[in-house]
């Protein structure tokens, strides 16, 4: 493609066109960052408006705050479990629908629905399903067990992670499915046909032929979902608000609690900045390992 000759007049027009967007993105991208950094080295809280320079006081406090590290641990755990589950289940669904099937467009259209609803609504639905007295899940388990089973899904520390993961994986597996399904249908069928003629089995064909072709899409899907999971808030807020105790608290929820319930302004700012740093490091590491197709 030849580079078109951009006139000076056009260049000025271009800058005028991007100016409003740049101004607004700076407002949410740059202002919060600078403000966060500034306030994090002060000592502002509800009781104290101390704006003097405190050095790394808040960061030191954060380093020894086990609740923060536990929240980070929960966040990474949810991400580490949900992300592969969603990918594998999404891929399995995509393969199920890859060949022609009666009513296939209807199935696809219906399977998409969980992904587009508000995560708060998804949380509400699962709250009703998991209810220990009037929810159908305990009823079905009791029926299968042959005796009354009462699981306190959202209060029992042994079950609450499973409950959150079920809701999360339920909502976002269709997202993975849709992306993988669309990219699989774009793969030239003669590729896997040729592999089959050469004697490759189903798994061999999948692993060596199909997956490498759709790899860029898998990478982007994982990146989008990974970033969403790292800041997971809504569905957990709707299900447990981080409870019981602080067992399902994620970094977003803990930062919310510190900032908007404890009013620890400077401390929350330090936390926010550390979250940005961790996120940047993780994204850089992820991008290093995969070359993003543009």
């Amino acid at each position, binding site marked *: 493609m030849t580079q078109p000759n951009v006139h000076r007049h056009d260049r000025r027009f271009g800058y005028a066109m*991007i100016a409003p*967007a740049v101004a607004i993105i700076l407002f*949410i991208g740059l202002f*919060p960052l600078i*403000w966060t950094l500034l306030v994090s080295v002060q000592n502002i809280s509800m009781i104290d408006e101390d704006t003097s320079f405190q050095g790394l006081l808040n960061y030191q406090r954060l380093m020894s705050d086990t609740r923060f590290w536990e929240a980070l641990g929960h966040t990474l755990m949810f991400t580490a479990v949900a992300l592969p589950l969603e990918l594998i289940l999404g891929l399995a669904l995509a393969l199920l629908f890859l060949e022609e099937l009666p009513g296939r467009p209807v199935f696809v259209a219906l*399977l998409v629905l969980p992904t587009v609803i508000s995560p708060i609504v998804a949380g509400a639905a699962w709250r009703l399903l998991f209810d220990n007295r009037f929810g159908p899940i305990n009823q079905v388990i009791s029926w299968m067990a042959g005796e009354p089973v009462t699981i306190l899904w959202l209060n029992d520390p042994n079950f609450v992670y499973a409950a959150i993961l079920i809701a999360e994986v339920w909502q976002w597996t269709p*997202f993975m499915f849709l*992306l993988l399904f*669309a990219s699989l249908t774009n793969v030239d069928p003669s590729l896997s046909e040729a592999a089959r003629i050469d004697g490759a089995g189903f798994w061999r064909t999948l692993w060596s032929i199909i997956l490498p072709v759709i790899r860029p899409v898998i990478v982007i899907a994982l990146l989008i979902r990974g970033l969403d999971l790292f800041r997971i808030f809504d569905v957990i807020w709707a299900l447990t608000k981080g409870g019981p105790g602080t067992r399902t608290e994620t970094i977003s929820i803990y930062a919310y609690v510190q900032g908007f319930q404890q009013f620890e302004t400077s401390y929350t700012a330090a936390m*926010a900045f550390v979250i940005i740093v961790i996120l940047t490091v993780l994204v850089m590491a992820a991008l290093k390992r995969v070359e993003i197709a543009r």
Partner: protein
Amino acid sequence: MRTAIRFVVAVMVTVLFLFPIYWLFTISFKTPDEIFSYPPVWWPSSFQLSNYTVLFRDGDVITIWNSLVVASVSTVAAMLIGTMCAYAIARFRTGGDHFSIWVLSQRMVPPIVVVFPIFLLYVKLGLVDTYLGLIILYTAFNLPYVVWMMRGYLQEIPREIEESALVDGCTRLQVFTKIVLPLARTGLFATAVFTFVFAWNEFLFALVLTRSAVTTFPVQLTHYFGGQSNFWAKISAMSVLGTVPIFLAVAFLQRYLVRGISLGAVKG
């Protein structure tokens, strides 16, 4: 035979995935006795609408209106500003590659990090619990998405059409408004609907930045969760009111769905 098995599995999977939505919808039609019965009632005896009329009577539906106002106005604003920016990037490569990557990277910033300083700024400016405050933030947060998606759609418009309009004496701005925008209308429409859905479903910003005047429906939903007295009827009815518009939007947009949620990575 293999197709038959696949079909059965497909039906089972679909039922499994739709069951939570089915459950939510049916509870909204149940009577209080049916909601709080054991064993649970799997099919309501009649489709009575009292759970909905309660929402109207108590004035809770105002939160649906609030969501509608905030999501529509912020969508229009983000589309306007974002499409202008996308056009400059697509046609003149304004700002170069780094600029468009920078715009996209803004989408990765966790909302909790943004909302905290914004909240304190809004307190000073008196923007907490106002339409304007929420609209500004939603516009800003959806802007990277609009720019990125519209860049993709605008790049697909052949340059020659614009060149000939320029030769005919149109200004650049006229080419943009009279030639480019009409040609990009399906892309504009699809992107706008997704932007609307994101704003409509958004929770954290609304939780922080609303008190009572402009509470959006997801925030209202969480107000119903409380200790032992969950308002199940209200939770389900409000959820349905907040979900049906989304389902309608998606039904119209099947063709653009994949492209819309994959940030343009898969053309579908």
